[in-house]
């Protein structure tokens, strides 16, 4: 299992390199000149050509591209991700503080969606009402298409303003993450219920379940010990997908709820043309994604040891 882990980590390195390359190329394609941008940020300066030249030299923009790229890479590895054009703080620190909030939000959202979806799916599987099942299937498909920004606004209007159950925005405590997490979790829950139900039904038709029932084991025992354990696998890959998209897609929700996470940080950076920040954002999102991938793979291996013996692993 250790070698499996090492292979994954090794594969991560060229991927991250590739991501940095993409981030660098993307920024070179930007229409504005970073030197001009950083000089005119406060809106009052009208820099002369000489000042712009000096700034370009200072930012290292007149070096050949390869050298700029390798310099930036070296800086990345040493923890120097550049300073933000706006606040002049190190980009890495700003990104790490922001990623705490985003990661917490994502974890909450995943927990909430699992805790709603799993019991619902079990109830669905155990009941034999055909109309209930088809209607829940229909509802969950439509729930999965609710746009998050719309849901966020509706959620704020109903729960935070009219009923005052949650704070409307800001990040005062962990509690203020609850409503955003619910909003993020709802589209995910729709799909999760469906996949969970399909997988539970597959398990239920297995022989060992019949045997357990014949032995006289209580139903809760059967559900807990056998059905949940065996159906988690297919759910895991879905959760992996969702963790990745939640991490990136929390942007809009963070904006609406004014949470100081990665999403609002990068939006602000884009609006103010804060290029070092945008570059750092792409790289850190790549790193977080790869970490999430590794965690999911580890969970796979832990839950089903057959996979680690080098069987076909479909990505």
């Amino acid at each position: 299992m250790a070698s499996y882990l090492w292979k994954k980590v090794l594969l991560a390195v060229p991927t991250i390199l590739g991501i940095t390359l993409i981030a660098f190329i993307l920024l070179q394609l930007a229409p504005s000149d970073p030197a001009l941008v950083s000089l005119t940020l406060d809106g009052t300066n009208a820099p002369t050509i000489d000042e712009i030249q000096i700034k370009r030299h200072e930012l290292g923009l007149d070096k050949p591209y390869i050298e700029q790229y390798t310099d930036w890479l070296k800086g990345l590895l040493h923890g120097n991700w550049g300073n933000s054009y706006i606040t002049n703080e190190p980009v890495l620190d700003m990104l790490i503080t922001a990623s705490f909030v985003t990661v917490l939000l994502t974890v909450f959202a995943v927990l909430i969606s699992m805790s709603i979806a799993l019991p619902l799916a079990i109830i669905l599987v155990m009941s034999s009402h055909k109309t209930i099942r088809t209607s829940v299937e229909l509802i969950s498909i439509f729930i999965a298409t609710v746009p998050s920004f719309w849901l966020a606004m509706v959620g704020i209007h109903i729960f935070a303003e009219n009923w005052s159950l949650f704070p409307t925005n800001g990040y005062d405590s962990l509690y203020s993450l609850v409503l955003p997490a619910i909003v993020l979790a709802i589209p995910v829950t729709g799909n999760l219920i469906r996949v969970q139900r399909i997988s539970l039904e597959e398990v239920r038709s297995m022989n060992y379940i019949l045997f357990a029932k014949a032995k006289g084991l209580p139903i809760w025992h059967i559900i807990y010990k056998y059905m949940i354990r065996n159906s988690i696998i297919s759910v895991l890959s879905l959760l992996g997908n969702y963790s990745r998209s939640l991490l990136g897609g929390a942007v809009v929700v963070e904006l609406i709820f004014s949470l100081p996470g990665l999403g609002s940080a990068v939006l602000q950076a884009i609006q103010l043309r804060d290029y070092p920040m945008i570059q750092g954002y792409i790289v850190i999102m790549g790193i977080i994604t790869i970490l999430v991938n590794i965690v999911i793979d580890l969970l796979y291996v832990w839950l089903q040891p057959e996979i680690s013996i080098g069987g076909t692993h479909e990505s």
Partner: protein
Amino acid sequence: MNHKFGFGFWASVGILFIFLAISIVSCFWTPHDPMKVAISNVLMEPSSEYLLGTDSLGRDILSRLMLGSRISISFGILAAFLTMTLGLILGVASGYFGGWVDYGIQSVVYLFQGIPGYAFMIAITGILEPSMFSLTLAVVITSWTSFAQMIRGEVLAVKSKPYVKSVIVLGATPFYCIRHYIMPTVIPLALTLLMMRISTTILLVASLSFIGLGIQPPLADWGIMVQEGMTYYRTFPRLVYIPGIAIILFCGCLNYIGERLRGYYL
């Protein structure tokens, strides 16, 4: 899925047709000019003249909804179609030829999968100034990988079947084999995936427009309409509810149909 498509399926198809019809009609006629600002008419209640009321700049909501349908749906179809083309070409190449071609394409896929889609889309549209081009580029770059992977899986499955193997042994050129054997199986799957991709694209574009990085005002798009309605949400919630329901309805029906078709073909 073992039985024919039921009521839900055809009802969804019907709803989709209604939306498409509205979009096409909006090319020629809308109740009022969707871009015409009339400050004297702001925020009016639904009346016989303005069937859904007016928005904060006095524009007729129904007309903007129709225009938004046209723009959202046509952009969604275009971007999803481009994604499908790219994913199809690379998926078939990767699955059929195998070897170095497969290895190369798979590494590119792995690289692109390492970047979270939404974050990358924001970065692309933010850096390259929001425009039709950057929007299309962002959508295609982030969505083609899942397409290519599924197509590749299907191609591999078909290629291992005995009748395909025998045709190859008999000396069929790759082109012949792909065209007559692989495509008939792969195309239905691709079309099904296309439907779901259209719905995802529309959602993505709507949320990008909401942030301001997608379709730019004064063009209408469901996302922009929600954003414009945000300021007046508390007193005039219908400004937000109406485009939102349009999105949910259209994309939900697309997804439902896509799921049913997928169950039918797989």
